[in-house]
């Protein structure tokens, strides 16, 4: 297994699901999605989430008149602060 680059966690942190009631981890998401008919493993679940977050980030930035490259959108989408911000807004917090 490849080790996490030094300082990665300090710089980016991890988006945790611990504080969100009813939130699942990727393994559980993969299992539940497979049961729903969307067959996937835990890494696919993560990639699907990132792709969805990229679409959300793109829509948000376009509304502000900013257009970002896919690479930039990917960086925004994987940012735990962005993810928890979106989750908070959707949860009405």
């Amino acid at each position, binding site marked *: 297994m490849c080790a996490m680059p030094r300082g990665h966690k300090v710089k980016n942190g991890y988006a945790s699901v611990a504080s*969100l009631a009813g939130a699942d981890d990727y393994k559980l998401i993969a299992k539940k999605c497979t049961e729903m008919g969307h067959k996937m493993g835990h890494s696919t679940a993560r990639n699907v989430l990132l792709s*969805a977050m990229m*679409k959300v980030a793109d829509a*948000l930035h376009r509304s502000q008149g900013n257009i970002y490259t896919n690479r930039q959108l990917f960086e925004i989408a994987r940012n735990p602060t962005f993810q928890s911000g979106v989750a908070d807004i959707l949860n009405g917090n």
Partner: protein
Amino acid sequence: MNVKSKLRSHEILTREQEVEYAKKIEAGDRRARDKMIHANMRLAASIAKKYAGKGVDFDDLMQESTIGLMKAVDRFDWRKGFKFSTYAYWWILQTVKQYVESNKGPISLPANASSRLYHASKVREDFEKEFGAAPTETELAELLGTTSNTLRSLRKSAAFCVSLDSQVRPGEDRRSYKDSLTDTSLTPEEALEAAQTKKLINDALSNLSAREQAVLRLRFGIEL
């Protein structure tokens, strides 16, 4: 006759009189017991006065110190050769202290809870002196041989409560605690911005595939 003059109306006993009364009390003389209690009421009052203004009523303190005095009278052993006041002082002090500790907050704490809290603050001080940093909740609980949950509930129960309507500085300032609270609700502009952001996100979500929506919903624990 006011309380002060009532207290002064009872003469202080000499050592010989104390021994004489103690012997009578041992023999079951109720009058001697009353006399001994009355003669030492000034001592009880002086101890109660020390604890006045600590969040409990003075009349209650006086009552508690009298209870302490009565305990001392019942347990005094004249054969040991001490003056009664030396012996009674500690009984009165203990009773009063225990009462103040248990009743100074809105929640009455058992005596052992107060002493545990006191012990916790001592341990914390010692830890800070030794390591130059405050112990974490878990470390402190471990040092005290308890759980952090218990420690937290103890602290919560002993917390000092203030009415939001009471004045911050009575007499000087008319402002109440309620006036100094920060309004954390959103301004109309912020609320509008939040609503717009939510609408934007919802629009973006509606364009996602069923698979993406399912993953997002499960990941964030939301209903889409």
